[in-house]
């Protein structure tokens, strides 16, 4: 990646002016855009998403004075252009890891993946962590992951309907259960070491 840009006060002022004439409103937009950039870089699998978000805004700020407010370009699209460039710069230097070193999974004839045998220990650990969950949470997560392909899609639609939730809210609920499982899993792993 190129050398880091150092933000100057006049550049920062120009950046805020890009977002809004009202300084307070511009400050709020700045924060939202910064968070959004972090989401963008995280979504692209970048390490140090927060640092890349700051770097993007610094570069935008350094050029903000040249942004044509009368042109039909939205400031967020302008910011995206810088973010996309920074992503490509860091993707070029990203180390690649051979796939056989990535995961402890083995490929089946069907094209699907399965854990290799040593992961029986992990399954036992998961079993113990699941038993620490409340009954409804345990039933939900076991049921949620119990099917594959079209059956999985149909099952989740039914689960969401039964619980009166939108699919993405059901997903977030499962996501939170997984977070508590992850904490339990790590705790047990540390204890075993």
């Amino acid at each position, binding site marked *: 990646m190129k050398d880091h840009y150092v933000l100057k006060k006049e550049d920062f002022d120009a950046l805020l002016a890009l977002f809004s004439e009202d300084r307070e409103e511009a400050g709020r937009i700045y924060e939202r855009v910064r968070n959004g950039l972090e989401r963008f870089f995280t979504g692209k699998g970048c390490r140090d998403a927060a640092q890349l978000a700051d770097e993007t805004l610094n570069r935008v700020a350094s050029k903000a004075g040249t942004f044509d407010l009368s042109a039909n370009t939205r400031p967020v699209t302008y910011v995206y252009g810088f973010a996309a460039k920074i992503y490509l710069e860091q993707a070029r230097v990203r180390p690649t890891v051979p796939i056989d070193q990535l995961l402890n999974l083995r490929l089946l004839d069907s094209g699907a993946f399965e854990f290799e045998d040593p992961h029986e220990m992990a399954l036992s650990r998961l079993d113990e962590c699941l038993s620490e969950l409340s009954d409804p949470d345990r039933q939900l997560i076991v049921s949620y992951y119990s099917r594959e392909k079209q059956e999985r899609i149909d099952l989740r639609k039914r689960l969401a309907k039964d619980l009166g939730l939108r699919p993405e809210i059901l997903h977030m609920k499962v996501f939170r259960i997984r977070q508590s499982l*992850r904490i339990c899993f790590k705790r047990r792993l540390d204890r075993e070491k």
Partner: protein
Amino acid sequence: MALDKKIMKNWLIGATSDAENEHVGVRMIEDDAFAADMSLAESELIEEYLEGGLTEAERELFELNYLVNDERRELVNEVALLKKYSGGSNKVSEPLPIRTWLDTVFGWRPNPLVFGPVVILILVLLGWQFLLNSDSNELETRYAEINREDVSDLSRFSQMELYPGTFRNGGNGGPVFKIGSSGESVVFRMPLTFTPSEGTQYGAVLTINGKQVFNVEKIQTLVVGSSQEARVVLPRSVFEKGQCQIILTPKIGGHSPIIYTFMAE
């Protein structure tokens, strides 16, 4: 504006056009709520990868552009572990609960042009099925009556206590039902570790080796000490050796289906 989930998945693996990249990228930056949609798409993408549901090209891109850091590798491992655990040895062979089947039927919007012949065909098939299963229906009818009677007196039946869980904790070391023991009927006691909402009613389906063998439409829940348990009386004659599950499905209100697992020998 809703964004096609396929485009979101393609964006995650780096398979989108420049225009799509910009569209998704801008949404990621400016729309806080979009992160939830992307997270859902990401989870589905991981599962499709693990299930072998991606094309060869998509799989290569997934490994090249998605599996680029330890967090993501851990995430894929975590989902693989949960899928392995939850699928267990009864993967995709376990029958769907009865309520689900009804939901599917009532949720269907038939084309009037094909509806008539389809109904006739279904009725013919149901009639045929009825003739084939009249013995089993008779038994289910008899046990529906038994399950409506007072099941608080455990001295009337053999009994077996089960606990919620899948085959992971129902295999070796789990409860074992002896088919050859005495007693025509067995009451299965299934503790509920939560208090069901008022008016919740459960049906029970017995599956053996993934195949549904017996169905009781309505069973009773009783207060035992400080907790509650569901009880279902089943005929010993329907059992055969293998992995058994009793799936409790709420008929009115309540939770998702609860699965109790044991072995029959």
